[in-house]
């Protein structure tokens, strides 16, 4: 037996396990298509062979998909789950993503039959509680943002951006003012330009100052009467508050444009600052960020958009109203809603997310939400302070908001890239930070801890980063180039995946 320096036998740990076995508590797991079960099903159904005469030539020619018994299915997906990192496992410092704790109360309430087992087109009289909940959510969102109106239906942040820009387009069009472009800083999240383009606008980039804010001179220079909107994220994607936001709004309005605020980072200021006080005309709120509906490995989320008086008439249908007979929905652009930009998607939005977000807001209350912002900002500044000495801060001056941004200056010449460094963090038990975003910062590392991290976890994380930083300085390049070593898989070949896309399993020939 060969024993390594720290007394751990090195075998058989560093031998690959025989194919198809587990290792300790981690199980290998093939695809469902490799588990057999082509002719079986894990759902017991009554025997009911209906005659198909009405559908004679309309029926399909078989459907080859495997069915698993419940024990197999449960095991399969539990094993897969073992291969994921999650906020419930450790700090998840993905900047711009606000990976905060997801309360289990919210999950429970969203599953109440009175919410989950409601059809979207039941008679209005039978869904008064659901509309009441939407109304309550709207009230909280409007009050927290200081804005007069809100469109709940957008299904995620990007959908909210679209909603906002389409409202802006409708407002311009209503005045017969067909503007063609949207201004947005280079640091903007990819959805901003993508949405603007989708909404039929040309995207013009605004420069950024050396201290990471919108360059007012450049903005003023580019603002003209063809500009429909200025899109600014605030706090911005560098984790900084746009100090001159009032001026941005003033210039924008002066040019006859609308001020769209990307509210993805609202978590940093909730309860302390109201976007309505900053001259904002439209702002989406990612309920799955600030209001903690779970990210779910990619979604679903919800992206309600608060709107100024000027834009409110153009809000998408359905409109939620309150009359003598209780709550009601105006589902088509007509009457009061005649100017509406129309429908963004079927039905009335992400009810399941509304329940969770409202439960979250009520739990925190006005006092708790203010504390959320304070703790989120404090945690980020703590990380900034603890790491700032070793890593290079993109904007060292002044405090950051909810996230701390580093560049790769400090890695220069080390042979270690931002990507390598991030992957090495996996070996220490943490999810990497957001990398290479925002684009304005070279080799960016954007760290957002959120307010739900205890100090102990922040320290654990900072210790790990500092220890890795020391390894970089010590020239231990292999620790980074080969990383991760301790994850379920080693580094994946993304180029191969893109070169020969295999998007579905196919039987081995």
């Amino acid at each position, binding site marked *: 037996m060969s024993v390594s320096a720290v007394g751990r036998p090195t075998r058989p740990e560093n031998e690959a396990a025989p194919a198809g076995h587990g290792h300790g508590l981690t199980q290998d797991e093939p695809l469902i298509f490799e588990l057999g079960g082509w002719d079986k099903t894990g759902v017991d159904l009554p025997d*009911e062979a209906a005659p198909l005469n009405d559908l004679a030539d309309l029926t399909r020619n078989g459907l080859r998909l495997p069915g698993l018994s419940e024990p197999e299915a449960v095991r399969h997906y539990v094993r897969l789950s073992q291969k994921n990192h999650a906020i419930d496992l450790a700090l998840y410092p993905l900047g711009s993503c606000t990976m905060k704790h997801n309360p289990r109360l919210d999950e429970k309430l969203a599953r109440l039959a009175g919410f989950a087992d409601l059809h979207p087109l039941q008679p209005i009289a039978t869904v008064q*509680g659901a509309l009441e909940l939407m109304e309550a959510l709207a009230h909280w969102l409007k009050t927290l943002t200081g804005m007069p109106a809100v469109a709940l239906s957008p299904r995620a942040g990007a959908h909210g951006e679209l909603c906002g820009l389409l409202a802006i387009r409708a407002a311009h069009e209503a005045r017969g003012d067909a503007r063609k472009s949207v201004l947005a800083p280079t640091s903007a999240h990819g959805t901003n330009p993508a949405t603007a383009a989708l909404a039929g606008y040309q995207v013009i980039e605004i420069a950024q100052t050396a201290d990471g804010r919108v360059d007012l001179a450049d903005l003023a220079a580019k603002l003209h009467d063809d500009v429909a909107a200025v899109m600014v994220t605030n706090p911005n994607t560098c984790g900084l508050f746009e100090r001159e936001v009032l001026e941005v709004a003033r210039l924008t309005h002066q040019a006859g444009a609308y001020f769209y605020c990307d509210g993805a980072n609202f978590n940093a200021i909730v309860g302390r600052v109201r976007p309505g006080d900053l001259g904002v005309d439209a702002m989406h709120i990612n309920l799955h960020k600030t209001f903690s509906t779970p990210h779910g490995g990619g979604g679903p989320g919800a992206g309600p958009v608060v709107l100024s008086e000027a834009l409110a008439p153009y809000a998408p249908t359905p409109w939620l109203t309150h009359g003598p007979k209780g709550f009601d929905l105006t589902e088509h652009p007509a009457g009061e809603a005649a100017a509406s930009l129309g429908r963004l998607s079927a039905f009335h939005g992400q009810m399941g997310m509304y329940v969770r977000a409202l439960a979250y807001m009520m739990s925190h209350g006005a006092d708790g939400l203010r504390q959320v912002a304070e703790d989120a900002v404090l945690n980020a500044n703590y990380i900034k302070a603890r790491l700032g000495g070793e890593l290079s801060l993109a904007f060292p001056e002044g405090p950051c908001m909810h996230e701390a941004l580093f560049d790769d200056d400090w890695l220069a010449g080390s042979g270690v890239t931002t990507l390598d460094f991030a992957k090495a963090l996996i070996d220490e038990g943490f999810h990497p930070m957001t990398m290479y975003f925002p684009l304005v910062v070279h080799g960016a590392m954007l760290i957002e801890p959120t307010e739900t991290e205890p100090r102990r976890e922040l320290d654990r994380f900072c210790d790990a980063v500092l220890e890795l930083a020391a390894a970089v300085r010590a020239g231990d390049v292999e620790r980074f180039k080969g990383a991760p070593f301790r994850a379920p898989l080693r580094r994946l070949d993304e180029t191969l995946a893109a070169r020969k896309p295999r998007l579905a399993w196919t039987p081995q020939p």
Partner: protein
Amino acid sequence: MRYLPLTADDRAQMLAVVGAAKLEELFVDVPAAARLPGLIDLPRHAGELEVERALTAMAGRNRAAGAGPFFCGAGAYRHHVPASVDHLIQRSEFLTSYTPYQPEIAQGTLQALFEFQTQVAALTGLPAANASMYDGSTACAEAVMMAARVTRKRRAILSGGVHPHYDEAAHTLAHSAGIETVRLPAAIDGEAAVLEAIDADTACVVVQTPNVFGQVTDITAIAAAARAAGALTIVVTTEAVAFGLLKSAGEMGADIAVAEGASIGVGLNFGGPYVGLFACREALIRQMPGRLCGETVDAAGQRGFVLTLSTREQHIRRDKATSNICTNAGLCALAFTIHMSLLGGTGLGALARINHARARRLRDALAAIDGVEVLTARFFNELAIRLPKPASEVVGALAAGGILAGVPFSRLDPEAGFDDVLLLAATEMTTDQDIAALQGALEAELGR
């Protein structure tokens, strides 16, 4: 505050590390005028018990679909979801993870997405499926945009059988991009009229089967005609259980299939979250919207999965992206995949037949009512009937008696002149007693 770990001590010590005398200093960049001195005018924090009481009371002011006979469909269908599905999607590792940007520690999500894509491909009969869209209607709208990109034409024809919400959502999105959407008049057999509407300017035809009236159509001829005219064919399905029985979009020659997947694994949820399915022909992959999960290998040669072809996406391609979608319907896609993995092809087929059988019993019961005319000849699990009075009145009256009798077509499209048309769906949840109760109540309401 139960969700906040920091104590007053922690905060004081951390501020010291940060080098700030007080917390306010961290907010210096906010214009002084915009810094709220005190609390916003909203209730203060509340314990779990209080929040649970308040929301449970609100939930109690709704009539849950399961509380009595229930026949609503029109794009959202009530099906049974095995308990294991909801259990599994609540595992921390699925529920509380982000989009799988770091594949080495996200293989759970990624492998499930690969399974999802494979299942969607098999169901739709089209080889390339993405990792989900928000819902069926936005998937449809994105398909129209994609067709315009692919064909470089700017006119989409939507059949009179397409769900009006889908039409509206497509119109909203297409409009600002200068793409025209033409909706043919609402008609039970709405797909038929599409054939004549196709011309050289057509970017795509959008047809639905089963359509919003429940009518099932073989769109092979339409797809052929569209292809001949250089247009793409987009097939919409709002009831995913139909995949178990009906010809797939691929079999019929479609280019793109979009569907609402909520029937499998997800549930009603008052309309959301749902899960949009999106699949297309191989050749169109690089024009697809949304995330794609692909197979690859790791540095040690082991199979693994990654998000791929992201040069189509907003975070790389920005204003040139094929879509602006970022957050999608990940967890609903997982629920769909788990439910589908339990069902298998065999189970989905059996489930579809049961749905059809129950709908036939519903049809027979309705047809027996004097004054009711069944309009849908070839249906899967949903059908339209004509009533001797406005459908919304009838539905309102029956709801007061505890029966949710379906969706008046006028609720979806008040302008169509179909005020007397009612859409009713039956699924495996519909019992013979439910049908009998409906029949009795309808007869009473119609005074027969």
